[in-house]
């Protein structure tokens, strides 16, 4: 237990020392919020069922934070640790793999929550964003989404040979998902075909799941199932193929 706490504390410090990870998790969502918020504002809009642009985009930004951490920061830093020999050195110490990975998961979780908190606070005070109807539901949905993306991300890092390839593939997968999922243009105003395509992307389902919970529409079963499935598959794959060096 002491090792887990110490390891988590150290990983937290390391996360904040890494400008890129900290930036995309904590700062970039705020930038998007203010850029799009200043262009589109948050006035109720009939296209979006009486919601404002910021209202609709906030869950998408939360999805972005989840995707950034789960698909990029998490797997890439794990792959870098593996390639450099950091995991190898940990393996020679009496620390269990669960502690090593667990500490990372704890920190990603905390940092993501921090990013979301900053985002929602800013959206509230700057654009009077609608607060969630079902905060506990949103929190649960958030946990499911983050867990499933982390599991998928770790499986990706396990499957690919180097940190570099992990970074390339993760980036190539993430950015299209991000903008097709509604972080740029809200899904409600997308052309039909693009919206259909976006339904095949996991990040879109994060957006749908959290949006529905946010606006009091309950759990979207398809989205929840997709994410739960990703979680299970990701966990099984990672457990099977993860290498320590």
């Amino acid at each position, binding site marked *: 237990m002491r090792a887990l706490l110490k390891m988590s504390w150290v990983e937290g410090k390391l996360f904040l020392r890494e400008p890129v990870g900290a930036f995309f998790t904590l700062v970039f969502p705020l930038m998007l919020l203010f850029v799009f918020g200043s262009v589109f504002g948050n006035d109720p809009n009939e296209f979006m069922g009486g919601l404002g642009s910021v209202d609709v985009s906030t869950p998408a930004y939360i999805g972005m934070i989840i995707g950034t951490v789960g698909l990029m920061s998490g797997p890439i830093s794990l792959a870098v640790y593996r390639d*450099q020999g950091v995991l190898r050195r940990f393996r020679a*110490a*009496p620390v269990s793999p669960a502690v090593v990975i667990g500490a990372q998961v704890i920190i990603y979780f905390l940092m993501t929550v921090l990013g979301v908190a900053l985002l929602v606070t800013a959206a509230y005070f700057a654009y009077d964003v609608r607060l969630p109807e079902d905060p506990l539901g949103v929190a649960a949905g958030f946990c499911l989404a983050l867990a499933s993306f982390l599991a998928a991300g770790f499986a990706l890092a396990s499957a690919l040979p180097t940190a570099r390839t992990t970074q390339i593939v993760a980036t190539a997968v993430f950015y299209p998902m991000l903008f097709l999922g509604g972080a740029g243009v809200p899904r409600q105003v997308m052309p039909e075909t693009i919206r259909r395509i976006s339904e095949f992307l996991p990040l879109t389902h994060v957006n749908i799941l959290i949006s529905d919970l946010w606006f009091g529409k309950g759990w979207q079963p398809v989205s929840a199932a997709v994410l739960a499935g990703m979680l299970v598959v990701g966990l099984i794959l990672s457990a099977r193929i993860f290498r320590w060096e």
Partner: protein
Amino acid sequence: MEIVIQAEHLRKTYRSVVAVEDVTLSIRQGEVFGIVGPNGAGKTTTVECMMGLRQPDGGTVRVLGLDPLQQGMELRRRIGVQLQQAALPDRLKVWEALDLYASFYDQPADWSVLLEEWGLADKRNASFASLSGGQRQRLFIALSLINNPELVFLDELTTGLDPQARRATWDHIRAIRKRGTTVVLVTHFMDEAEQLCDRVAIIDRGRIIALDTPRALIHETHPESRVRFTLQNGFDPRLLEQVEGVNRVIRDGDEVTVYGNGPLMARIAVILAEHHIAAPDLRSEQPTLEDVFLTLTGRHIR
């Protein structure tokens, strides 16, 4: 005499390559045991099997009475390890690394003392990435001792260090040994093995080709001594073949090497003096473990 490591018929293959074949050895408590050989010989693989980082394909190994694979956690609490190709997170500070690793053990040493001992006190707040090769090595050694282990594995400890740092590291190993810690030293530097090890196992292409004290190994394979000097003034080195104890005289350009037994140097000096030859670089070369390796395998270690 307590045996701390017992390996029997150890075997490890990677796909079609046999990395380690039929390795059997016993390491005694308190000794500095060298596992020496060229790069790729199977030294690191052997030691990784002892540490539980690799699963052997055949044979058994017991370390401190424990099975490294089944009882890995317990074993790792009692040993220290300094690995090749290991690293720490780039932005981790030196003191943070020591503090973190100390938290893995129940009764760690005081890491600020270790910082001092290994000359890292002024690098306390430096990030791992900013350390030089020598500093990193010292940090890894300090980490290997953080739990006051009974047994330490050191893999290629002085690679990349300048000569001064190497000598200083050797002193540190002698100090570790003095505390009663058993040391398993993996190295391809034969001079290091000769200087530090009580016994060595020479490994080549996955097999142990010799195992004994350095002195015994040298004596068994090289009963001859060797004297060298640079030829001058038209002296015919073949005259030396008549000297008592000389087995053969080899000439390579101006460089003469005389192989033989007994007080070779003194006798040759006498002959040279009789012929009024001054040979200021006349020197006696003791055979080394490198020579042992060459004799046993027909190849140079590098």
